[in-house]
């Protein structure tokens, strides 16, 4: 279902807080189009820290693998990255579908090494929102539909008090890829 308890503004705010604390950057420089690596100076280790902070804040589980890794896992070696280490047409189609054109520089044939720099703040926040939107209709414990959130971040059942359980980031990507493949028959 669509989650109505945690707003996009709060997600963006928490992501900014995580970036400020992890990367020691000024909040003012963080824009939706900022590249994690090129503009904000993130290295691979920082993503662990950023993910951890968001997981703690919202009670979610972020994806451990990127979309391209899931494509190769599901549809075979070479489906996302070709023999020359370049992005395939189909991978670009999927990236655009997933991030809604928020990665404007992306096109088939670009070198895989250039892809990490294209990860920007906006699509990353959308990824967090996608996980939060998997809040089930009813509490799995007591079947109540009375979800509540006191701080606008952590959601729990208003009836039994259980914390909300969301689909984890990796499972969400796999489910999304499965749906897209069924609908558009890309591979």
């Amino acid at each position, binding site marked *: 279902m669509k989650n109505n308890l945690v707003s996009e503004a709060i997600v963006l705010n928490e992501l900014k807080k995580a970036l400020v604390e992890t990367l020691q950057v000024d909040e003012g420089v963080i824009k939706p189009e900022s590249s994690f690596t090129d503009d904000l100076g993130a*290295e691979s280790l920082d993503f*662990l820290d950023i993910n951890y902070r968001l997981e703690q804040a919202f009670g979610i589980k972020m994806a451990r693998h990127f979309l391209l890794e899931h494509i190769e896992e599901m549809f075979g*070696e070479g489906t996302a990255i070709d*023999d020359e*280490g370049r992005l395939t047409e189909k991978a670009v189609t999927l990236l655009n579908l997933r991030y809604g054109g928020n990665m404007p520089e992306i096109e088939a044939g670009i070198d895989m090494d250039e892809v990490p720099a294209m990860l920007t703040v906006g699509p990353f926040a959308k990824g967090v929102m996608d996980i939060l939107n998997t809040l089930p209709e009813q509490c799995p414990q007591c079947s109540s539909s009375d979800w509540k959130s006191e701080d606008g971040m952590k959601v729990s059942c208003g009836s039994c008090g259980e914390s909300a359980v969301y689909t984890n980031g990796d499972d969400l990507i796999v489910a999304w890829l499965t749906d897209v493949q069924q609908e558009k028959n890309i591979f």
Partner: protein
Amino acid sequence: MNPDTKKSRVVITGYGMITPLGRNCEETFSNCSHGRSGIDYIQSFDTSGLPCHIGGEVSEAWIEKLENKDAQKYRKYSSRGLRLMQIATAEAAAQGGLSSIEDRHAIGVALGSHGENPKPQDMHHLHQFLDDNGNWDIQGLIKDGGYRYWNFFRRKPDVASSLLATAFDCRGPNLTIVSACAAGSQSIGEALRLIEDQQCKVMIAGGCDALLDIIGMAGFLLLKALSEKHPSPQAASRPFDRRRNGFVMSEAAGALILEEREHALARGATILGELKGYGASADAYRITDPHPKGLGAIIAMKSALNDAGVDIADIDYINAHGTSTSQNDLTETRAIRQIFGERADAIPVSSNKSMLGHSIAAAGAIECILSLMGINSSTILPTINQEFKDPKCNLDYVPNESRTKKHHTVLSNSFGFGGQNASLCISRYND
């Protein structure tokens, strides 16, 4: 000739190792020359639930059989890495006739090692003596006696160097190098400096690590640095291959006897080769990513060449760090191209880790020894699992089969996570 006449020339008079592929140097070298893999499913602990189930383990039966009386005496204080190192050192010491040297103050130890990881059950037990307010019940801990104090010693890397010196009666300089994947090569390089500077005549130098446990793997798994996707354990370590997806951790130990040339000649020791040069550097860039242009790697290799007084035209083979991670193999390739230019196409470059996995602090020592054995047997060891060419990794990686080729001078690379780098220049001995 060494260009700096003030410095002593340093030769190698003994070596020893124990690896997933052999109980000693000969067995390991032979298996490597046949392109065999020492990687398999991990047996020593339950890997259920982990995304990686493979590693390069040394057979416990081998260790039990090879441990000498001294090693058994210190066993309760000894990390598994040190147990392996005592076996490797015993082989090197026997070959080098170490026990016949009278002046024991002239012999030092330089060991690359990280100590044993704490066991989860030890940590759990320890926590029982910590209350909710953060106060420790030390008296209770002492009374319980259950937190065995020698576990503490196993974790301290300095204890390994100290016990090694005790076991082999080496009363000269004693140092421990803790610099991740560069530690083995750095310990050999720093030992070279001590002999050159006349601080001692002989050094036991090398490295050991046995970190194949949940604590050792957890951090690397979080970083996605270990290979998780592979058709078989044996095909997982594939340095420079397009389908490489992480390194494979292994355990091992390698020991060399380094000796001032004049000292070795005077006592009639058999000289197996010469350690001509050493270079070290830091990327000073990031904790886990190497510098994208390999600047630290370039400085280490160039420094080793300068120190050895050799030209790029003199290098016949490069024993690569070649971890099978996407970043290292690409960066190392770029760094080699940057230094050697067009000549890079004519130099065989191979990774022993394709067969042995990555034994962290032991790797540099083992690769140094295998390089020397290769020189002395005119054999260049292969990089196995070369199936899918990576267009960006475009050197001669000696794919899949060893090569017979007379060669004289080798560069051996070790580039650590965190950007600590070391290169060694090893050559055939010419008097």
